[in-house]
C-alpha cells in the first residue's frame, strides 16, 4: 500500500527564517497567550503551536476516575448514557492519575482523605486541571460544621471550576466541563499558590503542644498534613 503513495514532501526552506522572524517580533503579541502571561516563560518554548495545543487539550480531556461521595453518583450518570460527557471530548475516565489530566473532585473531603487526595493530585502530569463538584468541595457543604470535614477542596489543591449544587445535576457538570474546556482553550488555568493545608515533613512543623504529643508516634520524615480548624473559614 505505502509503496504506491508519493513520498511525503515538506517545504522546509522557510522554516528557519520563520522561526527567527517570530522570535524577533517581540512586541507583537501574536504568540503570547494567557498561559504564557501566567507562567512568564520565554518565547522559545511557546510557538503558535501552543494555541493549537490548548485547543487540543481542551478537546481531549482524560478524566481521572475518582469517586468520593454522593456527588460521584451524579458524576457516573454524567459519564453514562443520556448525558454522555464523552460527546464533548471529556469522557474517558482513566483509573491511574498518571494518565489523567483533569480531576473532578466529587464529594466531601475529610481529614483522613485530604492527604491522599493531595498525593493523587501530585501524581497527575502537568498541565492538570481541577473541577470541584458540589457544595462540599466549595465550603464543606452540608457538613461544614463537622469536626472532621475540610472546608472545601480549595484548602488542599487549586480548583479551576466550581460547580455548585448538592449534588449538581449532570447538566450542570457538563456545563462546568464545557466552561473548563473554554478556559483551557484560552490558555487559562488557576494559579498554583500555597494552600492552607499542605503535605510537609513532620520534622519541619513548629514544635507546639500537639507536635510534642505525637513525637513518639510519628517519624521526622513522615509526611503529614496539619489542620488548623480554628483558622478554617
Amino acid at each position, binding site marked *: 500500500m505505502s509503496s504506491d503513495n508519493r513520498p511525503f514532501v515538506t517545504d522546509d526552506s522557510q522554516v528557519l527564517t520563520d522561526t527567527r522572524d517570530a522570535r524577533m517580533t517581540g512586541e507583537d503579541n501574536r504568540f503570547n497567550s494567557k498561559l504564557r502571561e501566567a507562567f512568564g516563560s520565554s518565547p522559545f518554548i511557546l510557538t503558535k503551536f501552543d494555541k493549537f495545543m490548548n485547543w487540543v487539550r481542551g478537546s481531549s480531556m482524560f478524566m481521572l476516575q475518582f469517586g468520593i461521595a454522593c456527588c460521584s453518583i*451524579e458524576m457516573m450518570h454524567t459519564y453514562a448514557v443520556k448525558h454522555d460527557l464523552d460527546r464533548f471530548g471529556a469522557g474517558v475516565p482513566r483509573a491511574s492519575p498518571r494518565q489523567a489530566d483533569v480531576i473532578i473532585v466529587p464529594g466531601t473531603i475529610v481529614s483522613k482523605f485530604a492527604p491522599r487526595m493531595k498525593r493523587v493530585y501530585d501524581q497527575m502530569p502537568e498541565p492538570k486541571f481541577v473541577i470541584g463538584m458540589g457544595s462540599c468541595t466549595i465550603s464543606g457543604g452540608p457538613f461544614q460544621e463537622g469536626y472532621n470535614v475540610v472546608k472545601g477542596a480549595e484548602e488542599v489543591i487549586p480548583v479551576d471550576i466550581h460547580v455548585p449544587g448538592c449534588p449538581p445535576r449532570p447538566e450542570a457538570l457538563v456545563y462546568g466541563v464545557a466552561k473548563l474546556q473554554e478556559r483551557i482553550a484560552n490558555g487559562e488555568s488557576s494559579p498554583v499558590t500555597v494552600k492552607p493545608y499542605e503535605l510537609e515533613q513532620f520534622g519541619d512543623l513548629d514544635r507546639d503542644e500537639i507536635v510534642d504529643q505525637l513525637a513518639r508516634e510519628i517519624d521526622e520524615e513522615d509526611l503529614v498534613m496539619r*489542620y488548623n480548624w480554628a483558622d478554617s473559614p
Partner: protein
Amino acid sequence: MSLEEPEPDVPAPVEEQSPDELAELLGDHVIGREEHLNAPGYVIRPDAVQDVLSTLKEEAGYDHLSCVTAQEYEDRYESIYHLKKFDDPTQEVSVVVPADRENPVSESAEPVFRTADWHEREAYDLVGIDYDDHPDLRRILLPESWQGHPLAEDYDQDRPQIVPLRENANPLQEDHRGEDDTDTMFLNIGPHHPATHGVLHLKTTLDGEQVADVESDIGYLHRCEEQICQNGTYRHQIMPYPDRWDYISAGLLNEWAYARAAEDMADIEVPEYAQVIRTMGAELCRIAAHMLAVGTFALDVYGDFTAIFMYAIRDREKAQNILEDLTGQRLMFNYFRLGGVVWDLPEPREEFFEKTRDFLEDLPEALEEYHDLISGNEILQMRTIDTGVLPPEVAKSYGATGPVARGSGIDYDLRRDDPYGYYDELDWDVVTEDGCDNYSRLLVRLREVEESAKIIEQCIDLLEDWPEEDRTIQANVPRTLKPDDDTEIYRAVEGAKGELGIYMRSDGTDKPARFKIRSPCFSNLQTLPEMAEGEYVPDLVAALGSLDIVLGEVDR
C-alpha cells in the same frame, strides 16, 4: 405478607420471654431496669457483659446484636447493646452497661458477637470508652493520630490535628514479609481505586495469588453525620441528612429510618395515604439502588464499562425521573416529613401514573436482559458461584442483614418481620437464596427488583382509586417537637443494604441528645475477611462488589 390464605409452611411463632423472665434469667448481673420505647432495658455490671450477652444469646435466642450505642452522661459513660432475634425482630432487648466517668472501662462483647469488634472500636474512637478484653481496640473512623474523642462532652473542635500520610508499605522490603518466612506479600487496594466503590482501603496480605489476610481501613468519608444530627432540630433540620448516608439513590429508604424513629418517639400517627406514597417512593429507590449494585458488580467482575453498566444506568435514569417528578430532586430527595410527606403526587396525576406504569412494564424485559448478560453468562458464573462463601451462622454473628444475609439463606426482612408503612397490606415475597456465595447475592438483588416492582404496582392501583377528600399527606405535627426528657428509642427499617437503625435519646430540648446510626454496610463490610481469605485476589474484588457497600454509610 400475602392477602391470601396463610401459606402452609408458616414457621412456628418464636418463643417470647416477658421482661421479668429475662430479668430472672440474668440474675444478679442486673443492677437496674430501664424502659426504652422499643424494648426493656437492663442495666448490668460492666464486668458481666459477656456473661449476660451469651446467656441472652444461648438461652433466650437473642442472636442478633444489631447495634452498639455509646454515649456520655454528666456522671457516667454508657454503652447500649441493642439485641434482637433474627427469627422475630420485634422481640428486642437493650443491655445497658454504665462505665465510670473518670475511668470508663467495660467488658468487650466481641467473644460473644463478632460484630461487636467494629462497633466497640467506633465507640472507643468517637466517645472514648475502653473495652476490656477487646482483641484490637484502635481508632476506626478517625486517623490514628487524632487527639480527643469528638462525641465526648469536653471535646474542643478547634484544636489543631495532624494526620500523617504514610507511604504504602513496600511489599519487597524484608520486614513486610509475613511472619515465619512464608512468601507472603503485602498489597494495598485503595483508598482511591476503581474496585473499592468509593474511598475504602484494603490492606491485603497475599500468599502467592491467594488472600491470606485482608483488613479494611475505613474512615475516609467520615462526615460526622451523628454530630450534625445532634445539632439539628427534630422537625426539619435532620431530614436532609439521611439522604446522604446511603447516597446510591436510597434516599427515601434512609429518610424513613429517621422518620420512623422520630414518629414513634413523638407519637405521631402517619395518614394512610402518605404511607402508601412513602412505600411506593421507597421501593422506587430500592430499584435504583439495586440497579447500581448490579451494574457495578458486573463492572468489578468483567471490567465491562460499556454494556451492562450503561444498561443499569439507563434503567436508573428512568427510576430517577419518576422520583424527580415526585420529589423535585434527582438524588437528595428530602421528601419525607415527620408525619407524612412534603407534597402530594405531581399533577396531572394520570401522567405520573402512566409514566410509572410504563417503567414497570418495561422492567421485565430489562431484567431478562440482565439475566442474559449477567447471571446467565458462563464466565460470570465461573467467577461467582462458590466464591466469597458466607455461611449463615457466620453472617449472623457479624450482624449481616439485607441482601447479604438473604443471599446466605437467612429469611430476615424488616418490611415483613417488623412491619411499617403499608407493606403488610400488600402482596409480595421476601427473596432468599441459599447459595451463600457471590452469585446468590446477585440473584437476590435482581429478584428483589421484581418484588419492589410488584409493590409499586399495587401502590399505584391504590393511589389511583384513592378518594380525593381523603388525600391527607401530613399529620398535624407541632412546629417544634420536644419529646419528653430521657426518652430512648431504637428503630430500624429495611434499607437498600439491610437493617438501617436509628437510636435517639431526647433531653427535653428540640434536638436529640444522642443520635446514633446503625448502618447495614458497616456490619456487612465486616464479613469481608471471612469471605475472602483463602480465595484469589479477583474473588476478593468480586466479594467486595457483592457486598454492595457504600462508604457514605459505612463511615457516616
